[in-house]
């Protein structure tokens, strides 16, 4: 055949029932009802291979890394560094030197604020944030702004929860030193056009930090395509362990940044007169890290890769459409965050029922959702609401669970209506 056929999206198949077998916690009961877990934005559940990797490490492999000559230490070091390589490929970073292990997204952002930020953002300089940032991508910059006398500017959004890119473009001045933007909003679900935003910032010579805490588990991310300068994410929201996160940083920038914390591992040599710092990425990794977590994160990436991020994305998008349509059939239910491109998150308010009551009611039905401001108080203020109820989907959720949710919400309305 020589005809050029336009590439059509292949319908993908994900055997959700077999995926669910990998997550034993999904068989638990809550208040006597089968657990339905829709709080994945807070943290996802963990599959057996991840739990086993952690278990195996403590049972058979436990040892400190980067310091022992003995076999276990050597093996632990190899395993931990292999995890770093795995992360490098997962996000398509340029090299392992660009992958810094941290505690999570929050620590990654604080690291950049207190190293790159302290060094480069001075009195009278400006930092650009957006109206939909998580508190962890606001407060570190406020702390920095206070320390160094800088100001913060905020990219506005529309009532749909989309950033107004024209306004963003106008915000750059010769004093702009950094842009920090969330890739996927945890309270609205909006997928921000980060590639485009990076391009605009770079045109003004300004580096960009992207908060990927809610992105890496729902879509492929590619550092070399995105060209951002820093990217932060947490393992625990992508089926991995808590206490492990990644700061990706472009090597040229990391090279010139001062260390974050001082201690073991981050030094090359120490005397009381002078200390020389270790090479990348160890310069930013003081002290014994979360070794079991790093190794389990390696297993996490294997797990996700084996299913395939494109498959996960297609499955979740279809589920998300189904959930959105089903929820909108409930009278008095309004979805907060109706951007054209969304991932995983459906935030809603129900007329006359406070989200906290929705949350408790659903809990008693075995359904775990998040209610509150989701660490995005400015977003709640913007929409003039105290809180929302949030359903956030993962690859193991299924239509039948959405149906149970919808039925329970009808009951909520009857009880409080």
């Amino acid at each position, binding site marked *: 055949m020589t005809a050029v056929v336009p590439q059509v999206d292949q319908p993908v198949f994900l055997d959700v029932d077999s995926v669910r077998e990998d997550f034993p916690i999904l068989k638990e009961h809550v*208040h006597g009802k089968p657990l339905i877990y829709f709080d994945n934005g807070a943290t996802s559940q963990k599959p057996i291979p991840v739990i086993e990797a952690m278990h195996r490490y403590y049972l058979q492999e436990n040892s400190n890394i980067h310091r022992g000559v003995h076999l276990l230490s050597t093996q632990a070091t190899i395993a931990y560094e292999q995890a770093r390589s795995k992360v490098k490929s997962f996000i398509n970073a340029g090299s392992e030197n660009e992958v810094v292990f941290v505690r999570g997204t929050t620590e990654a952002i604080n690291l950049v604020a207190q190293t790159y930020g302290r060094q480069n953002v001075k009195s009278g300089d400006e930092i650009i944030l957006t109206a939909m940032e998580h508190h962890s991508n606001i407060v570190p910059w406020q702390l920095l702004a206070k320390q160094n006398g800088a100001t913060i500017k905020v990219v506005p959004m529309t009532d749909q929860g989309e950033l107004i890119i024209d306004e963003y473009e106008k915000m750059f001045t010769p004093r702009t030193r950094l842009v920090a933007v969330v890739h996927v909003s945890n309270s609205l679900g909006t997928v921000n056009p980060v590639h485009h935003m990076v391009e605009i910032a770079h045109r003004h010579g300004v580096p960009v930090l992207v908060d990927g805490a809610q992105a890496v588990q729902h879509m492929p991310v590619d550092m070399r395509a995105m060209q951002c300068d820093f990217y932060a994410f947490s393992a625990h929201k992508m089926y991995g362990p808590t206490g492990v996160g990644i700061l990706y940083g472009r090597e040229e920038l990391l090279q010139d940044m001062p260390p974050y914390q001082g201690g073991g591992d981050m030094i090359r040599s120490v005397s009381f007169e002078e200390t020389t710092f270790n090479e990348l990425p160890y310069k930013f990794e003081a002290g014994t890290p979360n070794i079991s977590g790093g190794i389990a994160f390696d297993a996490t990436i294997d797990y996700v890769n084996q299913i395939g991020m494109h498959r996960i994305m297609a499955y979740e998008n279809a589920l998300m459409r189904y959930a959105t349509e089903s929820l909108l059939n409930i009278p008095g239910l309004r979805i907060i965050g109706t951007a054209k491109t969304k991932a995983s998150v459906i935030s809603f308010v129900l007329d006359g*029922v406070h989200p*906290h009551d929705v949350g408790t009611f659903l809990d008693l039905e075995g359904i775990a959702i998040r209610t*509150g*401001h989701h660490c995005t108080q400015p977003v709640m203020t913007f929409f003039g609401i105290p809180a929302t109820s949030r359903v956030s989907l993962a690859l193991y959720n299924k239509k039948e669970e959405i149906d149970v949710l919808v039925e329970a919400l009808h009951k909520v309305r009857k009880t409080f209506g």
Partner: protein
Amino acid sequence: MSDLKELYQDTILDHNKNPRNFHKMPDATLSLEGYNPLCGDHLFLYVKLDNDVITDVSFEGSGCAISKSSASLMTTVLKGKRVDEAISLFEKFHDLITSPMDKQPNTDGLGKLAVFSGVREFPARIKCAGLAWHTLKSALEGDQRTISTEQ
């Protein structure tokens, strides 16, 4: 087993839907704002005092069913009470909603406030039930700050 009816008793649902004494009081002796940042419950409490006696109470604001009905029920039991009686009621109510699960809840002297005994099974909701009462206590004790349940 905790269930819905235990927490959301009919009295609570009724006061949520039709809160009593739900209005501003321009000539209040004391007024204070209460705020629960976790769920965004936000209320304004107004108290009229004649010497040591509470002659009128009202409230305004928005919140979940537990916080709203708790405020509403509170306003219905305070009229005619002395300040020290109101404080002692606060303490009894506080004990009721925070008492450990392995003990029978003590509802002595609480009257219809006893409908909140189910709250102790829901640690995430204790602050909701307590917000109006904490605000009251602070107002009576002369605290002028906004009262937040997050210390």
